[in-house]
């Protein structure tokens, strides 16, 4: 009986990976043939991108600030508070900016996508869409994927900037660094490899944020309770996948000699 349970569990996970991969390939493919739902894509860019702006800015600002606060204590021991700008910039651009932005956007939007699509599924709106001649993947999934791909990198840039700004505020108020000292240190520390990894990560994270939400939404069962479950699972899985993907992508870049 345990073997049967394990067998069923493993098969379910393999099927989930297969279905997710099919969802990814079809949603990418749909952008290259009509009908294309450009208006829906623009609407989603507003919802996902502009709508996430406040939390991304706040997250970036306070992350940079607390990073400067915590690092100041250690650096002051060695009399190297002048390195604060460098520490905040490298941490934000390489890692904290992309990852925390993706986590915030996943928390806000993967859940929103899963609950919206899940609600549509349980109320037969997806069936109605198919009955009226619309491919739900083209109409619902592809716009969300491309909207997230377009906006998450931009949000990451903003998060990086506001993170460095937060670090600057703390550096100038606590460490008594001058603005020139901080920003020069921050600017000079950044190299192409840092910016490259910091700006390529959001594209992978965007796929996770959009498609995990869509996947769980489209596989909702069990009425309104099922919608709640899908929403929770979407956020949890998206966040875990972002962290796992970040680890392996970083490892890959190191192995490939990027830094």
């Amino acid at each position: 009986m345990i073997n049967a349970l394990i067998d069923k569990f493993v098969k379910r996970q393999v099927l989930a990976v297969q279905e997710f991969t099919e969802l990814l390939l079809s949603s990418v493919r749909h952008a290259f043939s009509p009908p294309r739902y450009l208006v829906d894509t623009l609407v989603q860019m507003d919802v996902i991108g502009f709508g996430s702006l406040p939390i991304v800015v706040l997250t970036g600002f306070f992350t940079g600030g607390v990073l400067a606060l915590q690092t100041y204590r250690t650096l002051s021991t060695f009399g190297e508070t002048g390195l604060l700008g460098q520490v905040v910039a490298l941490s934000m651009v390489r890692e904290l900016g992309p990852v925390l932005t993706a986590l915030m956007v996943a928390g806000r939007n993967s859940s929103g996508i899963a609950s919206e699509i899940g609600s549509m599924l349980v109320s037969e709106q997806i069936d109605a869409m198919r009955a009226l001649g619309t491919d739900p993947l083209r109409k619902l999934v592809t716009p969300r994927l491309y909207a997230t791909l377009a906006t998450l990198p931009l949000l990451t840039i903003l998060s990086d900037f506001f993170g460095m700004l937060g670090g600057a505020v703390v550096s100038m108020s606590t460490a008594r660094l001058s603005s020139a000292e901080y920003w020069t240190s921050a600017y000079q520390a950044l190299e192409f490899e840092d910016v490259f990894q910091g700006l390529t990560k959001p594209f992978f994270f965007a796929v996770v944020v959009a498609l995990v939400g869509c996947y769980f939404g489209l596989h909702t069962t069990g009425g309104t309770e099922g919608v709640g479950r899908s929403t929770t699972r979407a956020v949890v899985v998206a966040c875990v996948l972002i962290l796992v993907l970040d680890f392996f992508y970083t490892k890959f870049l190191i192995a490939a000699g990027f830094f």
Partner: protein
Amino acid sequence: MNPRAADTSLPRDGAVSSTPVVELRHVSLAFEDKLVLDDVSFRVGAGETLVLLGVTGSGKSVLLKLILGLLKPDAGEILIAGQNLVPLSEVQLYPFRQRMGIVFQEGALFDSLSVHENVAYRLREEGMTDEAKIEQQVREVLRFVEMEDAIEKMPAELSGGMRRRVSIARAIVSQPAIMLYDSPTAGLDPVTAHTINLLIAKLRDVQRVSSLVVTHRLADAFALANYTYSAEKQALIPASTDGGPGQRVPTQFLVLRDGTAYFWGSTDELTVAQDPYLRKFLA
């Protein structure tokens, strides 16, 4: 004992056409280990009405979804105007779906779109861009279902009966030849249910669409079978069988039991059936 085998070769009372618009041949479907439909066969001719009766869970709604191609059967054929839909891909099914309209149980209106946009949805998907023409057609069908005043409202602002009426409008905007109704009066009060029945009969009798109506309300089923729509009185009148005004529309009944076609026959055959299950069902 099964009182009547669902045999497509037997002549149907009131059959008006030899080419059925909808035909199922030995259709079976199971979800995981549960057999939902087992060797179901029936046909619906042009202009005919088929009422699907059965207890909850007997597979009625699943049948409608199979006909629309939203589900694929494990066995059997589903023919629309002689063409088997089963081997077709989702994209190949679109032209067939254009000939069919469906009213889902709770209406299934898109809740982020207004009534206007819900009804216009199919027209836009079919490529219509002339806003004036879209507006005209939308208002026409909303007038038909007496919901023109609610054109700018959102679905959340509508009552259950109003949502059903808008759902009917959305289904008929492209003038389908076949209408599928999934429990159109479920959860409605008797007055509102009568309004929905009147609309179904109006569509059937004025536009001569073929109809498949899923219901577990016998009163509604027999109302559709025994009454026709009078354009003069704008009401349902008892159907006649003598060739006069209000000629009875050919209506078949299909009773499902545990996923099988337990009875398939005319209104008269059903009412005189002596089978204990049918008598209990009709009681």
